[in-house]
């Protein structure tokens, strides 16, 4: 589904990603872990098309298409979804109006007619229940005055509404208490299926107790330095990142 080959990227002249290789097949969940500043969120931003990042080398293929040549909106229409670490508050844009626009943009792109008001409402209700998203928040301005947990839940709700084939969760667990974490994780687990892939970016093993990954990758200094199964996350929880960093530095100095 997603193939990343030797991806290099920089922001304001600073090299952030230094040769990432990653293959994510259909239906799998991949966790990306790593210390602060290792490039985790940058990878998410580059995949979603944030334009302050410049890709200097490498390729990204998504379902056989060159992802890097697409605008952010086309990536989303093709089925890439980024759940933001910091969802943006937009006063004056109602949540429901925003969602209707987004859903219909995807449908138009796929050659489908826009949803009738009734159908849209039905879909909204269904997905709201699935991810346990409060109806009161629907008519409010997009994320305005939402608590941290509400914002993250809104991201998962949008994920449910847009039904992408690849969802990238960028530190969705940050700032969540244990109850919110459980609700968000339950939402994600309900959305899992054989057609959908997830990239779960996180600092902590905690989230991976709820969203169990098929593979865990460790990102450090703009590169993936280790790949393993979910047990790797436990090992990291126990030992921290230093043993990996040291191994990496030794490799470099050789």
């Amino acid at each position: 589904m997603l193939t990343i080959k030797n991806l290099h990227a920089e922001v304001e002249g600073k090299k952030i990603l230094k040769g990432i290789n990653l293959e994510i097949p259909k239906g799998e969940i991949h966790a990306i872990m790593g210390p602060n500043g290792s490039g985790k969120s940058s990878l998410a931003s580059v995949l979603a098309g944030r334009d302050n990042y410049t890709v200097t080398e490498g390729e990204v293929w998504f379902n056989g298409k060159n992802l890097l040549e697409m605008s952010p909106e086309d990536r989303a229409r093709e089925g890439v979804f980024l759940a933001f670490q910091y969802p943006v508050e937009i006063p004056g844009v109602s949540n429901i109006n925003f969602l209707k626009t987004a859903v219909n943009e995807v449908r138009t792109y796929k050659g489908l007619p826009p949803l009738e008001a009734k159908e849209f409402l039905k879909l909204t209700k269904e997905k709201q229940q699935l991810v346990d998203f409060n109806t009161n928040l629907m008519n409010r301005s997009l994320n305005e005055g939402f608590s941290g947990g509400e914002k993250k839940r809104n991201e998962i709700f949008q994920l449910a509404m847009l039904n992408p084939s690849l969802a990238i969760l960028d530190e969705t667990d940050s700032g969540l208490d244990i109850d919110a974490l459980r609700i968000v994780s339950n939402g994600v687990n309900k959305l899992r299926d054989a057609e959908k892939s997830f990239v779960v970016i996180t600092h902590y093993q905690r989230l991976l107790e709820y969203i169990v990954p098929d593979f865990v990758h460790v990102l450090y200094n703009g590169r993936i330095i280790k790949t393993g199964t979910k047990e790797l996350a436990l090992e990291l929880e126990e030992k921290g990142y230093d043993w990996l960093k040291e191994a990496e530095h030794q490799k470099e100095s050789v």
Partner: protein
Amino acid sequence: MTSDTIMIPFYQALTEDVNALTAPQDSLQELRRSALERFSATGLPTLKTEAWRFTNIQRFLKEYPYELTSTPATTTADVANEANIPGLDAYRIVLVNGHLQADLSSIPEGKGIRIGAMSASTDAPGFAKWFNQHTQVNGEPLANLNTALFADGLFIELQANVSIDKPIHLIHVYTSDRHAFVQPRHLWVLQKGATATVIESTVHPKQEAVAFSNCVTEVVVADNAELWHYNVQQGAENFRQVNTTAAQQERDSRYHHFNITLPNTPFTRNNLSVVLHGSNTETNLKGIYLATGNQHVDNYTFMNHLVPNCNSNEHYKGVLLENANAVFTGRIHVHQEAQKTNAFQQNNNILMGDKATINSQPQLEIYADDVKCSHGFTAGQFSEDALFYLRARAIGEEAAKALLVNAFTHDVTDEIAVPALQEYIQGQIEAIMNN
């Protein structure tokens, strides 16, 4: 008068006797003559005139050989229908170049309601008392020109405690075979406790000739009366306008003025002046200007606090695309007697065009010591984060910008108290942004 002004085509006519330009039965000859004298003394504003520093009106007047015109014209239902606002249940009044066209109008009737042509209303008590009484009207050159030479307009007088059950939708149609300088003049008087909503729209039939409107509207809101006044300026390439609105408020009254300027009129100047004669009033001046191409939009506002305990709240929001050029002046004068005044002013702008400009100037003159006054100005771009967030949700760049512009203007549009109009304005903004 500078030698420049002589170049303006209809100026020649002005030097002739005012009697020749107005109807012989006109009862306002004296007023007209003195207004013309005041106009002649000042001449047209130049860039040296403080209130016109950023707008060269002479340039716009010289653009075409405008003819002073006062001849009534008529229009068709099809043309007037272009101003329709879906879902708006309102009385409709159609004015063509300022002249009331009765067959296309449904004028509210009833005890204490007098609505009709200005030319047929000079005998009304409200007319005698209030016509041409606003100091700003007597002080503005363009308004003096209007007083001297206006042909007609709409008169409204509501007696005490009369309420009109539906909004009045006032449709201005500007049409002419030749380039025309038209001068509508309106006077709306709400006596004690009366309430009304007036929505103004404009229609410009497709034609080669250009119309330049120099319109003056005088508004009186007496004790405890309330007027909601919306001016929707949806222009056209073949239109130019100077629009002077001069309101007077008596005690406990409420006046809500919304000025929405949309494309494509190349030149718009709005003079909005509110003077408070009675205490405990509320004034809301809300504006949106969304300008494209080479549009020049100048909003000059003047809040005149003469008496204590009044509240005024002014908020203008601008979105400037392409080469659009906007001016905002927010003058607030709090007189020494006007203690406990609350006067707030905000002007926020988004500059989307590389060559778009805004000149914004607050002018606060405060002579009372126990007041709360504030003003603020911003000019900026869209939040890149917000734009990216929307695009990452499959919303195309243009549509995302349309959403963000509507979001930017929402604190003004949210205040529109007529739901059909609110929806219409938001829809228009979205449509303009998507083009």
